[in-house]
């Protein structure tokens, strides 16, 4: 089933089944004359434990691709296999369970509830999963410790700096122990020093916990730190970034 797409496969994991495999993904927005083809046939394979940067200019289709891979949106054409299962066959409960426990997302914006406490924001995925209040608290505090935010647990989401907010968002993405962490421009809203700290956290998770890391960025310095880079331009993957001299 999983015919290997153009994949350098330089990583020597013995895993037979890639955690994500996409073939010929297409996605258009709008209709008629307004129609815009954001993705024009993208194929890729991502193995367990991989760290992948999706690099491209603004408007090139990075976020669209990531949303499709994270099963937040459905492609117009093509298929996505998650851990060997075709995503199209998943619906309702199973799709929700997958989104909830297998994937973690760090969006371009923070999407924190400003009136709730940091801890409440962080344990939202556990609440959705139906985890009891006590366990939610324990796991929420554990992940806040991990990100050195334990002292901010009771703060309101609104009363945090940008870097703290981004770390809260990462804590929220990690709280349900996802296998794949998606991050859309995780350092885009941060100053260089803070961005560096967040980057270190993400790579630490990949290195120490084996979490598959898929990050969208237009920052080439950041992209350079990943094991693999996928370059995208006008909705298609291109082999190198030579044309993307920033």
């Amino acid at each position: 089933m999983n015919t290997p797409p153009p994949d350098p496969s330089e990583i020597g994991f013995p895993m037979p089944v890639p955690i994500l495999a996409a073939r010929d993904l297409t996605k258009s927005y709008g209709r008629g004359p307004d129609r815009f083809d954001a993705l024009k046939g993208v194929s890729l394979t991502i193995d367990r434990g991989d760290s992948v940067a999706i690099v491209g200019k603004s408007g090139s289709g990075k976020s669209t691709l990531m949303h499709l891979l994270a099963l937040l949106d459905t492609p117009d054409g093509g298929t996505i296999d998650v851990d060997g299962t075709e995503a199209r066959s998943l619906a309702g409960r199973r799709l929700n369970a997958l989104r909830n426990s297998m994937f973690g997302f760090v969006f371009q914006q923070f999407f924190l509830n400003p009136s709730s406490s940091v801890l409440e924001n962080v344990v939202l995925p556990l609440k959705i999963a139906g985890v009891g209040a006590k366990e939610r608290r324990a796991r929420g505090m554990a992940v806040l410790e991990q990100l050195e935010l334990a002292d901010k647990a009771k703060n309101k989401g609104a009363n945090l700096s940008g870097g703290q907010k981004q770390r809260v968002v990462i804590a929220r993405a990690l709280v349900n122990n996802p296998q794949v962490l998606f991050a859309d421009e995780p350092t885009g809203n941060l100053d260089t020093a803070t961005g560096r700290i967040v980057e270190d956290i993400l790579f630490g998770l990949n290195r120490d916990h084996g979490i598959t890391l898929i990050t969208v960025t237009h920052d080439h310095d950041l992209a350079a730190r990943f094991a693999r880079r996928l370059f995208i331009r006008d909705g298609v993957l291109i082999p190198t970034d030579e044309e993307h001299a920033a």
Partner: protein
Amino acid sequence: MKPMDILKTAVTNSFRSKLRTSLTILAIFVGAFTLTITNGLGTGISNYIDTQIAAVGSSNAFTVTKTDTSGTPGSGPQKYDPASRRVAAGGRPGSTALVLAQSDLDAIGRISGITGVSPVTRLSPDYIQWAGHDKYQLSVSPLAGATPQLDAGSGLDEAGSQPQLILPSSYVAPLGFAGEAQAVGQDTVIGITDATGKAHTVTARIAGVQQSALLSAGGAFINKALSTALADAQDTGAPAAAKTTWTAATATFAPSSSRQVQDMKSKLAAAGYTAQTLDDRIGTVRTVINGIIGVLDAFAVIALIAAGFGIVNTLLMSVQERTREIGLMKAMGMGSGSVFALFSTEAAFIGFLGSAIGSAAAIGLGTAVSGALARGPLSDLAGLQILAFAPLSVAAVILLVMAIAFLAGTLPAWRAARQNPIDALRYE
């Protein structure tokens, strides 16, 4: 998401926009308040009517009269029929009523379901007097099975041979008693004139004192022994025919369903008698009151429907405001069902708050007003609490309002639930 978490989250969410939620709650408050008041009015008045009906007679008895088949006024004089006797009747001057003879009573008694027939004797005592004090006019009502509301003493002893009466409370002071308690157990003298104009007296004991009430204008209730004694005195020297004819009879029956009652009525009608239960006679009053309360209820429901649109509006704005949050939760695997449940629970909670506060305020204010009325303008009608709040009907009002709120919440909740996570997250 666990149901308890949905409930908690919905409650928290409803307080996020305090001003908007408060205004919606206020709108519901008005509707729930009105509905509780009108409901209380209905309960209060029908409670009162029920006790009043119990006070004037048994619900297991018909008042039977001979059906007057003479034509409508203006159809010319009626042919004389020697078999039917007429007596002057109450009502408009000159009107007459057909009388019942012993044969009629027997015929009524043969109708299946009727357990007993007794003639209603019209007794006209002249006065009542106690221990040489002033004499006062008295009318008596010998309605079997009545359970008057007593202020003092006990009910009539129908089986005993001692003549007894229940004294209306308005007689207590005029007759010379210091209080109701003193009157109970006292012997009074009742004067009555017979057919030849000779005055007789009968001694009767006061068994109890009756509350003043709306439907007790019939006079003092008397027991069988007293009514027999009075009738004997009144009929002394009367022609035989007068002793054996009556204008009406009381026919009793075993407790029956309304269908059985209807059945007996139609059998009596077929035999040429008109039978009315107490409910028939009181029914019109009830219908009018129910009509008025129905109109008031309709206004309250209109207010609630208006409040329902307030809920729709409030929640649509919430859904709009929380578009990203909904998208985020769906992206994290929250099912459409949970999102729907979250918003409709919020609607039902807002409905609950509005109706609980509205009902509580209505009960508080209503009880105070009703108490003040009972002590003031309505004090002549003992036992009338114009507003009575039955727990069940208050609960029904709250549930109804919550149901309206829930229905109002379904549109916004459905909108929230069907959102695509990514559209919701892109929403600015």
